[in-house]
């Protein structure tokens, strides 16, 4: 089987990982196994949702991003592309102007809010919703983790994914366009995107259905947050938020949260957030149980991007603050009467480049390319599984008994990995206690059992 290279931002530092298996138990795609005492992620199955990152007690799971310092020498004109949730990380006493000024102070020539591109997306939705031939429900392509989840777990729904670039891409393309008339060469313009999550890093590094990304550097929001917060506390900068008049419709800033996007696709639509909720719904959708829905807005994080794994603040506070900001924007827009979004002047040009290629399934679930061989493997898995206890205890290093059976058939494990089977094999002299010991060490790491000396219970264990 040829395996395409899948890029991931969720990584495990095996120096820190103690192989405790917390991550293995929460991964919805069953991408994690414990091998040699460490967690190991299968690239075919991981969708960069970050659920494993949330539960790791050792902080051994990290998000591989670029550093803020990257490219500082190469770029003459640096643009910070900042999503609205970033502004929601700060108490409302700090205005967007103050926060933007602080970002500029860090060496950026321009600060651009990603959601400025949402007016364009809204206009596209209006057009797309009229298309009678499009496969329904149309599934939003906004959350890259949702897109990958569908590619891995729900292959028959890939054709429902909207073939439209997300707002951060549209914003980046627009920024390149308006700066192309200046005397700075394109390669001297650096677009830095500040991400709330791992999935957006992957989307910017290896976008699905696009040949290359218009974004140069992706930095986790946390790094920017710490630097900006420091400046905000030190600075007594201008508080006048009115100075920089906003030029987008006010609810655009809620786009990445849950519930706003769906309102802009005509017809019956649903907004679903949280990875388990999303999976549950896609499951019934793929089973053909739902037929008359037009649009699905899906986010793997609870509360949408406010719940992103590298958002430093509390998600509910962020949602509330973004709501407050929307109110302020609305009032201001009332005074100005009309919204003039300069990005929309480029709508025609943007439309030409906004489409992505069809999204195709990944091979994470396939047992074999050949149906006949796959069926044979499946029969073996079924047999093996019937010998396993079905407790899903995880002591074999796989999240479920069924997963162990699959791993055995794939040649990555053996029946003796199951501690219950081990007992029986020892009783029947099929496995020596020494072999059983080595098997446990192979999964949970060398010396893992050292603290249980022979005399446990008699003397204090060191």
């Amino acid at each position, binding site marked *: 089987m040829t395996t395409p290279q899948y890029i991931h931002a969720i990584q495990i530092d095996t120096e820190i990982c103690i192989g405790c298996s917390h991550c293995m138990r929460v991964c919805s795609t069953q991408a994690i196994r414990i091998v040699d005492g460490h967690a190991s992620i299968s690239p075919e199955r991981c969708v960069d949702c970050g659920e494993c990152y949330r539960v790791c007690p050792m902080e051994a799971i990290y998000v591989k991003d670029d550093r803020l310092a990257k490219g500082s020498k190469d770029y003459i004109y640096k643009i910070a592309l900042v999503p609205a949730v970033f502004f929601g990380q700060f108490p409302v006493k700090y205005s967007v102007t103050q926060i933007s000024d602080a970002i500029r102070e860090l060496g950026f020539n321009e600060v651009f809010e990603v959601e400025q591109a949402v007016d364009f997306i809204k206009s596209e939705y209006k057009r797309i919703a009229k298309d009678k031939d499009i496969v329904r429900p149309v599934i939003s392509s906004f959350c890259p983790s949702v897109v990958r989840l569908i590619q891995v777990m729900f292959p028959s729904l890939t054709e429902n994914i909207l073939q439209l670039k997300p707002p951060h891409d549209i914003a980046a393309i627009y920024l390149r366009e308006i700066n192309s008339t200046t005397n700075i060469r394109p390669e001297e313009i650096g677009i830095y995107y500040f991400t709330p999550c791992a999935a957006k890093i992957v989307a910017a590094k290896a976008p699905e259905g696009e040949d290359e990304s218009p974004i140069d550097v992706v930095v986790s929001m946390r790094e920017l947050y710490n630097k900006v917060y420091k400046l905000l506390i030190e600075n007594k900068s201008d508080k006048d938020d009115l100075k920089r008049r906003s030029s987008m419709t006010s609810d655009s800033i809620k786009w990445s949260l849950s519930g706003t996007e769906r309102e802009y696709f005509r017809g019956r639509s649903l907004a679903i957030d949280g990875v388990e909720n999303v999976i549950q719904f896609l499951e019934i959708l793929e089973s053909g149980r739902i037929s008359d829905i037009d649009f699905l807005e899906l986010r793997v994080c609870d509360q949408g991007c406010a719940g992103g794994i590298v958002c430093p603040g509390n998600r509910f506070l962020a949602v509330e603050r973004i709501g407050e900001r929307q109110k302020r924007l609305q009032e201001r827009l009332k005074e100005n009467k009309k919204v003039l979004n300069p990005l929309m002047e480029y709508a025609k040009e943007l439309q030409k480049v906004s489409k992505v290629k069809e999204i195709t399934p990944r091979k994470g679930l396939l*047992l074999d*390319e050949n149906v006949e061989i796959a069926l044979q493997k499946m029969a073996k898995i079924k047999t093996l599984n019937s010998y396993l206890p079905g407790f899903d205890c995880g002591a074999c290093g796989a999240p479920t008994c069924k997963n162990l059976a699959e791993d055995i058939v794939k040649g990555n494990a053996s029946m003796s990995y199951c501690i219950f089977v081990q007992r029986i094999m020892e009783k029947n002299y099929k496995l020596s206690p020494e072999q059983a010991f080595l098997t446990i060490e192979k999964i949970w790491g060398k010396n893992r059992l050292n603290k249980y000396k022979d005399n446990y219970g008699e003397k204090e264990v060191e």
Partner: protein
Amino acid sequence: MKMQFDIAGGDFSAAGGASSEVKKTLKQLNIPPATIRRIAVALYEAEVNVVAHAYSGVMSVEISPTNIWVQIADKGPGIPNIDKAMEEGFSTASDHVRQMGFGAGMGLPNIKKNTDSMELKSVPGEGTTLEITVNFN
């Protein structure tokens, strides 16, 4: 590869469980996604038919490298007029069943549309047996 599932009549909350299991299995084989979808829709409709109209039923599945064969046999009132039941929009579902969003009469014609062969036998007062085949290529 053979599988078998029991279907309980009247249990709408569990409807779709069997077809969902079959679909999960098919996803591990290299079968075109559109084909999986057709099978999923057909099996779900068939399962709901049992839940909505019969007392109990059994779904038997056989997957070969080239196709899937499924038999859904139920114990129930049966279908007195099969030709009529095949008409789009025809349904004998009770108001209660319809209110729950089931039994819009899309069942049988929809199954036929999504399968390569379909055979329906029924003995009024005893039950109905539906056999369908979908080819993978």
